[in-house]
């Protein structure tokens, strides 16, 4: 009786879960497949498959719609900001976690407060700040802003990692006569490398996607990042659907590649850190 009631229930569960997996993945598959079909084909057969796939739309989007420029700009701004933000946080978190000085607690709370504050609240003042610094429509301005926005999170995570390192490590090095910068660079920093990798990845994704700040701070086409360029492009290529789909794929592909490459690295890093 019980087993009899369970069997159809289990079939329903399988159907629901695998059915939803299709719902989750199909739109992305349609995006990819339609980018390989000419627009005329998409319009006449919205549900068709790419019978003679072509990369022509990608070529058009990459050069004509200047996605190559957007791509490079996004790469410069995001990588620059992640590296700068992580670098300054790695040193600050170290000082907060391992050094004794008056105001340590207060400074730590000051830096961590940013975790709870929405940086959008400062959008208008940031606009005028950038204006007065001559950093409107500038990749440098965006990089500095992004790097600063990563500081609270990085300091939060990294100082926890520094704190977990045994005190004997730097004490022994100090007795051996190593300077503070050497202790940091050659002993401490290598030990938190797994945390550095995770922290960099977690910063990368939201910065790669950030749209509001580029919308407000960037003016000219040759400075646009991918999301900003995409919004421009969707206004200009409204009827060229093949190109629109190709643009969406190009905007999405880097993160998929990054995640496929990085997931293993991060899991390896985390487990290495735990088994010490």
């Amino acid at each position, binding site marked *: 009786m019980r087993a009899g009631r369970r069997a159809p229930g289990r079939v329903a569960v399988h159907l629901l879960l695998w059915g939803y997996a299709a719902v989750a993945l199909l739109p992305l598959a349609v995006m990819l497949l339609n980018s390989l079909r000419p627009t005329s084909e998409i319009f006449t057969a919205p549900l068709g498959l790419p019978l003679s796939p072509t990369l022509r739309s990608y070529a058009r989007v990459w050069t004509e719609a200047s996605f190559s420029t957007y791509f490079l700009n996004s790469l410069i701004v995001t990588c620059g900001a992640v590296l700068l933000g992580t670098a300054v946080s790695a040193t600050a978190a170290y000082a907060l976690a391992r*050094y004794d000085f008056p105001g340590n607690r207060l400074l730590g709370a000051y830096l961590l407060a940013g975790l709870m*504050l*929405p940086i959008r609240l400062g959008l*208008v003042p940031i606009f005028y700040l950038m204006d007065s610094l001559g950093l409107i429509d500038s990749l440098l301005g965006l990089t*500095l802003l992004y790097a600063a926005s990563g500081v*609270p999170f990085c300091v939060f995570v990294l100082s926890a990692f520094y704190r977990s390192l045994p005190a004997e490590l730097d004490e022994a090095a100090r007795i051996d006569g190593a300077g503070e910068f050497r202790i940091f660079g050659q002993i401490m920093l290598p030990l938190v490398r797994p945390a550095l990798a995770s922290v960099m990845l977690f910063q990368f994704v939201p910065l790669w996607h950030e749209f509001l700040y580029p919308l407000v701070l960037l003016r000219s086409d040759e400075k646009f990042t991918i999301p900003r360029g995409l919004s421009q492009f969707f206004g200009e290529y409204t009827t060229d659907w093949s190109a629109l789909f190709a643009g969406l794929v190009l905007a999405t592909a880097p993160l998929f590649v990054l995640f496929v490459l990085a997931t293993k690295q991060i899991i390896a890093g985390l487990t290495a850190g735990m088994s010490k």
Partner: protein
Amino acid sequence: MVQAGELSTPRRSRTPRAAHAGGRSRHAPRWRVLAVFLLPAVLLYSVFIVYPLLSAFDYSFFEWRGIRQAGFAGLDNYRDLFGVYPYDRQLWRAFAHNALFFAGTMLIQNTVGLLFALLLFRYGRGKRFLQAAFTTPYLVDPLVVGYLWSLLLNPTFGPVNALLEAVGLDSWALPWLGDTRTALPVIIVVNAWQWVGFPMLLFSAALAGIPAEYHEAARVDGASAWQAFRRVTLPLLTPAIGVVSVLTFIGNFNAFGLVYAMAGSTGSPAGSTDVLGLLFYRVAFVEGGVEAIGRSSALAVLMFVFIFGVSLLATSYFRRRERMLV
């Protein structure tokens, strides 16, 4: 922030020395060393984050003529938001849409996320694949998701309506994003499509933390599957439900990219999808006029106070519920 907790706890709990290292034995270096370590981060953070945030409060209490500060205005900018056309209407409308967005997301995304977590809990082969499939959309930029779905839902060339017509549901082939009645619900569903993997993962982790004896005890006592869920599992999920609710609230009230991509900066059609994020952007940079700085700053401060205040209240509410469990 969730990730941060996950990252730091395993290491800390494994090294009992951690607390000791943070104590008296710490080194006190010279000021010059400290400055080299601390100044870059403190400067960067103070100039580009703290100073603008404090300025936003300051700006909101002044009268503005373009970019010139004209004089102390007290609460005038705040009053204008509620009393001057068109903000008096748009503010409440946008707020109502955000509230609906939140309610709809809790109802659809988080309930479905919990359901998937429960169904996957003891699922055999394919569990990993299913989890990965459900979470894949949240790797995609919300802006890309918005543009993608606006193409998919296009009434003439979109595959969604073509599919509905192909299976005989012609009457369901609606202009989804062009109708004031369907546009906001569609945006809520698309948003849920993107994020459903997130509550699922959090609930899965919470379920894995419930001791198996509890379920067995419930079964031995003769509880039905529903009773066991209602009386045992659900109360024990309170902390996870709290985290998911608060993060959903914060996310929904800050919505921008997805709505911008699907409905433009005005929340078309006819403002039926306008949300606070879009309104703020318009007041500040599109249609604010000479009063833009003061009014948009006032709106930013109001949004911050509301989102932060509600999040704090909700967090303490869920903490109390948690304590009642023990």
